[in-house]
């Protein structure tokens, strides 16, 4: 009994590889490396989508905080460009939607969902690039704004030394807090860019490898019809192809 079972298993396992080799016309190590990379990325798609959504929430929250700052001081002109561009709100919305769509597409993968997820991730990459540029310009503009703030404080008539000390510290404190907020937004945006690129690569490979999966599906079902025991034994690979 034992040798016969092993023999049938090896026969069942060889046939999918035999069918895949002539169709792909590629050397086996590269194909296996690509498959292993795809499997590894696919296993982590929920984690990447969760980080994407968290970064988007961070950018959106910091944007709301900056928008609620009173607007009659020198530092407001530094981030007015950032707020007017709408990046913290529109960009964060795109990041959240692409993250949610990645989770849904990983759960049930249809062609429409895969293409939609790919499109939104590409748009997220564009928004992330734009955000990185705008936030970098805002960070660079902090120093001259701080100097203008100091000059305006010094021009005031100073009757008490204590109040002058407070005024100067206000400029330094505002500069440091805004620098921290911009740095945090920049880091979140860079992380978002990396994750969107990885996810877009994954969905692109997914959408372009539908045809071999469909071709591999047919002979496997014929093998299932021929033998019930092999059908039971090959159940996980059947599910794997169904997921693909």
């Amino acid at each position: 009994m034992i040798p016969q079972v092993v023999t049938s298993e090896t026969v069942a396992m060889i046939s999918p590889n035999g069918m895949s080799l002539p169709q792909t016309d590629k050397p086996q190590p590269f194909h296996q490396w690509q498959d292993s990379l795809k499997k590894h990325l696919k296993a982590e798609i929920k984690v990447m989508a969760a980080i994407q959504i968290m970064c988007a929430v961070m950018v959106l929250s910091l944007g709301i905080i900056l928008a609620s700052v009173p607007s009659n001081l020198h530092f407001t002109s530094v981030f007015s460009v950032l707020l007017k561009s709408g990046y913290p709100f529109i960009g964060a919305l795109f990041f959240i939607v692409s993250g949610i769509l990645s989770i849904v597409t990983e759960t049930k993968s249809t062609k429409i969902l895969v293409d939609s997820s790919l499109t939104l991730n590409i748009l997220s990459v564009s928004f992330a690039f734009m955000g990185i540029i705008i936030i970098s310009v805002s960070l660079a503009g902090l120093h001259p704004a701080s100097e203008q703030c100091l000059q305006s404080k010094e021009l005031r008539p100073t009757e008490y030394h204590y109040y002058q000390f407070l005024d100067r510290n206000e400029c330094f404190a505002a500069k440091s807090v805004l620098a921290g907020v911009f740095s945090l937004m920049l880091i979140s945006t860079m992380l978002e860019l990396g994750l969107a690129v990885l996810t877009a690569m994954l969905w692109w490979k997914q959408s372009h490898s539908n045809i071999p999966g469909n071709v591999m599906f047919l002979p496997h079902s014929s093998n299932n019809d021929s033998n019930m025991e092999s059908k039971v034994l090959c159940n996980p690979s059947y599910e794997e192809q169904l997921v693909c």
Partner: protein
Amino acid sequence: MQGQEQTTMAVVPGVAVPSKNSVMTSQMWNEKKEKFLKGEPKVLGVLQVMIAIINLSLGIIILTTLFSELPTSVMLMVPIWGSIMFIVSGSLSIAAGVTPTKCLIVASLTLNTITSVLAATASIMGVVSVAVGSQFPFRYNYTITKGLDVLMLIFNMLEFCLAVSVSAFGCEASCCNSREVLVVLPSNPVETVMAPPMTLQPLLPSEHQGTNVPGNVYKNHPGEIV
């Protein structure tokens, strides 16, 4: 079915009772592991680490401002010790999700319970801090620091929810042992009916990977040791 049983007995020539016990232990462990993995501990762990890093960053940003303007929670260094505990428990959740062993699941459960208590404490401090405000508020910086303080409070509450979720799934995996024992013992026919599908499921992936039957038996022994 019969072939599978014969191969199992052929590999283990000892008494039938130990093999049944090992099969029972393996089945129960697989069920527990599936219960734990159903809660997505890896994703929750990554979220915990992310929230901890964000809280730490927000705390450092607020600390760079004037001392008289600091919110109460930041003066008590809540972002520092809170974030360290969150990072440790999140890393442990990720480790338990990647390789679920009994020690890791129990350690993850313990640390997440402690973390949920700390997160609740930090949330209470955050509420008090937002309500009280700060001394000598500058009109410009006050808005930003108060906004960051509210943001830290929201993330502490989210951390509390995540820690409770991971603790619940960890407890379900490791604390519901007596119920399963009660179910298994009285009915042997149910066990014999349950046995074949459970034995088939772990066998198939190992055969798909190309390992032999003795390798599968060797894999069972480390599980028993753990």
